[in-house]
């Protein structure tokens, strides 16, 4: 009998066949490999959020192995000398232990915090990209709504995580959250007492926030991310207008290998940035803040950046309190805190969620769109967005107005009033300015299409006048006019853009392209292989 021989070269093929026999995976797998992704730098922003989330899951799991959210009081006797013998909660103690007594714990904590900040920042910037390019339009309204939900879930998740260490800053934040819930009419005191299990702070709020932070919210966020990406794959990515690009195709590169190699590399780069930030820039040094005590606070108390706009709105709110009786029954209070911290976030959730439908209604546009719009081509939307961003920025800056007042020697009260007035005046101003800028840019695009690029070459005419030579972008017709339609994409406005410059010489110390014959062969081959016209 002959010894059965394993043919190593045939093994992958046999394995593949064996798998396909069972799951008939050949066709869907190839479809996945061949899926085309359009390429543009602005499409990477959402990816940053996704990758930060993965880093959050990884580092968070490590932290959970050592953290205990218990609010039971203990005496610290870990390695950090200045706090030894101080009474604190178990949550604060285990966070200190993570920072000082767990090997590599501090770098994990800092990576977790930086990743959270980056996650929220990437969500916001991604959302701006989607808004200003009109990517939220039909058929992508649902994905836009999911995106906004992800922002608010991330916000809550971040706040819960920020509260867990039970340091002086996070406790103060929690105290304010308690006051915010208290301000809700009718049920406020019931909601607050129920969540805190009695009086603030009680013993149960951190364990409750903990299960929210490590299980419930991440689960929901993960599920929504999966739906977000599934819809993206199903509906295919939007693309910028350009040669050969229509509403009925996607022009780009295939998912495997080109796109996935780049995306995988980008994941590593995002991960790297978070690690570098965590190593080099201290964040949330809770041992300097001390444990939470209801009587302790320091000047310049700031929340994480994504909460700051609500802190700003709270600071700017005038002292307007409504007191009255309810159908002649008792005396009731509606605290001023209710408007900037409950009503405003409500509006900031609902308005953007219904925006795609409002825009479709006002523009009477019921078509599906897969080609993106340049912000300048939709002045109204762009200006509305600029208005919203300005509103947000005034709130954000007001969230740190005490620090600004201190550093720039401005009266604190003046900063508050500047914020109050700015919040009302700047957004409309931003609308007007943006509208003008959009129209100006539109006009300049048409001008260049009609008359050509300004070359910077000044010609003197026989009669003594000086004129600038323009480089037309197409052959003029018999009347000397250039008929070029605006295609919704960048119009070249510099001679360099149309090939006026020689290509860059490659090489760092000396050129690497110094072999003319090699170059010629390459060029000839290149010509041969190029079947279709280049973009």
């Amino acid at each position: 009998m002959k010894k059965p021989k394993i043919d190593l070269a045939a093994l992958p093929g046999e394995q593949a066949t064996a798998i396909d026999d069972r799951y008939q995976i050949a066709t869907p797998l190839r479809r996945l490999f061949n899926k085309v992704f359009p390429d543009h730098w602005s499409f990477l922003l959402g990816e940053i959020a996704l990758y930060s989330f993965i880093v959050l899951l990884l580092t968070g799991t490590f932290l959970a192995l050592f953290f205990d959210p218990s609010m039971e009081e203990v005496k610290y006797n870990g390695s950090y000398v200045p706090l030894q013998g101080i009474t604190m909660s178990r949550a604060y103690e285990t966070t200190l232990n993570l920072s000082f007594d767990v090997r590599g714990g501090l770098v994990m904590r800092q990576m977790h915090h930086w990743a959270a900040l980056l996650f929220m920042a990437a969500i916001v910037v991604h959302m701006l990209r989607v808004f200003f390019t009109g990517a939220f339009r039909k058929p992508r309204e649902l994905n836009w709504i999911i995106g906004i939900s992800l922002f608010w879930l991330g916000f809550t998740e971040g706040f819960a995580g920020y509260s867990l260490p039970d340091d002086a800053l996070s406790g103060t934040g929690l105290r304010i959250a308690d006051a915010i819930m208290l301000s809700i009419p009718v049920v406020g005191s019931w909601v607050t007492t129920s969540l805190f299990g009695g009086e603030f702070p009680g013993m149960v709020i951190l364990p409750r926030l903990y299960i929210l932070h490590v299980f419930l919210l991440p689960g929901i966020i993960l599920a929504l991310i999966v739906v977000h990406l599934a819809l993206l794959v199903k509906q295919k990515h939007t693309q910028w207008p350009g040669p050969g690009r229509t509403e009925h195709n996607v022009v780009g590169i295939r998912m495997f290998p080109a796109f996935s190699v780049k995306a995988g590399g980008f994941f590593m780069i995002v991960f790297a940035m978070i690690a570098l930030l965590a190593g080099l820039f201290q964040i949330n040094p809770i041992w300097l803040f001390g444990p939470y005590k209801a009587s302790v606070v320091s000047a310049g108390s700031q929340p994480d950046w994504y909460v700051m706009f609500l802190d700003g709105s709270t600071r700017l709110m005038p002292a307007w309190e409504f007191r009255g009786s309810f159908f002649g029954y008792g005396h009731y209070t509606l605290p001023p805190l209710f408007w900037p911290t409950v009503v405003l976030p409500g509006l900031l959730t609902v308005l953007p969620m219904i925006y795609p439908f409002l825009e479709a209604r006002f523009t009477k546009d019921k078509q599906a769109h897969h080609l993106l719009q340049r912000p300048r081509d939709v002045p109204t939307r762009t200006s509305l967005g600029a208005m919203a961003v300005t509103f947000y920025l005034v709130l954000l800056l007001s969230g740190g107005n005490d620090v600004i007042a201190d550093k720039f020697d401005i009266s604190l009260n003046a900063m508050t009033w500047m914020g109050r007035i700015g919040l009302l005046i700047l957004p409309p101003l931003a609308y007007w300015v943006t509208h003008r800028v959009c129209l100006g840019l539109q006009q300049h695009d048409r001008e260049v299409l009609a008359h050509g690029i300004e070359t910077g070459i000044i010609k003197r005419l026989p009669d003594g006048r000086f004129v600038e030579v323009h480089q037309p972008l197409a052959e003029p017709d018999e009347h000397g006019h250039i008929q070029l339609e605006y295609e919704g994409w960048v119009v070249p406005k510099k001679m360099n853009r149309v090939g006026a410059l020689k290509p860059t010489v490659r090489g760092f110390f000396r050129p690497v392209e110094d072999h003319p014959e090699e170059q010629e062969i390459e060029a000839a081959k290149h010509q041969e292989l190029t079947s279709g016209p280049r973009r």
Partner: protein
Amino acid sequence: MSTHSGLHAAEADNEEFDHTDPRLSRFDLVKEGARRDGVQLVYYAPRFPVPGTRREARVVRAVGLLFFLSGLFATAFVVAYIWWPWRYQDGSNLSKLYTPVLGVSLGLSLACLGLGFVAWGKKLLPEEIAVQDRHDGGSPADEKKLTGETMLNMVDELGIKRRPLLAKTALLGMLPLGAVAVAPLIGGLIKNPHKPDILFHTGWDPSLNSGHPIAVCREDGTKIRPEDVSIGGQMTVFPGIFNTDGDFVGASNDFADSPTLLIHLRQDDAQVLRSNLVHVPINEQNTWGNFVAYSKICTHAGCPASLYEQQTNRLLCPCHQSQFNILDNARPIFGPATRRLPMLPLTVADDGFFYAKSDYQVPVGPGFWERP
């Protein structure tokens, strides 16, 4: 190109295509596969048409170096993780660099790996422009019709229309079941804020001391005499409450609503305050000599309103910058706060120590609906 004609063409071509034809190159098969997936490679060219040029070798070397460096930095991470002195020591020493060394080595390792992959993708993989059909709009009309009818048939099969009793009883059965899902959550969590009436009582309530007035204490639980506070000075004070073991708990977070600011006013300022007391009748008996005590819990959002400006006689809350005038019953004079800081009824007993005559007469801290 139109979506539908493209699809039909693909279907028609499938039969003509012979995948066993030996003349077909691998790339022919790739293109055929892509075509069946609605993808057309309109431009496809290797980055280096002539293999082995100096430029290609240079790029390959660079990418290789990046991968090598990645491994090097990762090794540095592991070595540092194990052997770098990591235990916290006071003062300036190598252990302070543990976190930076870990972060930088990990970051550089990942960055080199990432840059290597990106360079591989951008500089070495063939340049391509692929165009994929987008199947837009709804499903074909016949598909919609068939699915719609299938769904309607489900309704027919269930016979909900013919048997309305079933629909109603099913609803009757399931609604309480929904309540069952909610009941444990709400029932388990719910707490009545008014039994005990936590929002209206603080640690200064004499009932916590079997009806006797509560002593005004420092953070360590020691009582305070008037001469302990210098003129113009202030001190954060806590209710003198001790647990059964005799430990001082008045300054703990169990009494988070009780921290109070005891202020020793200058003579002139005290005069001003006394003349202002009539504005808030309940405060009239609450000061003792030139001493006044206000709740430290801001009436806006509950932060400690503890930044005391001695010169202007203001208290400022650092969270949202509400400012209170100490000489006018802590009236809010700037910022979002709407209510005065409550004044603690202060007295000095025969033993010469400060005591609270009673609890605060109005709720301390942020406003809420039931607050009169």
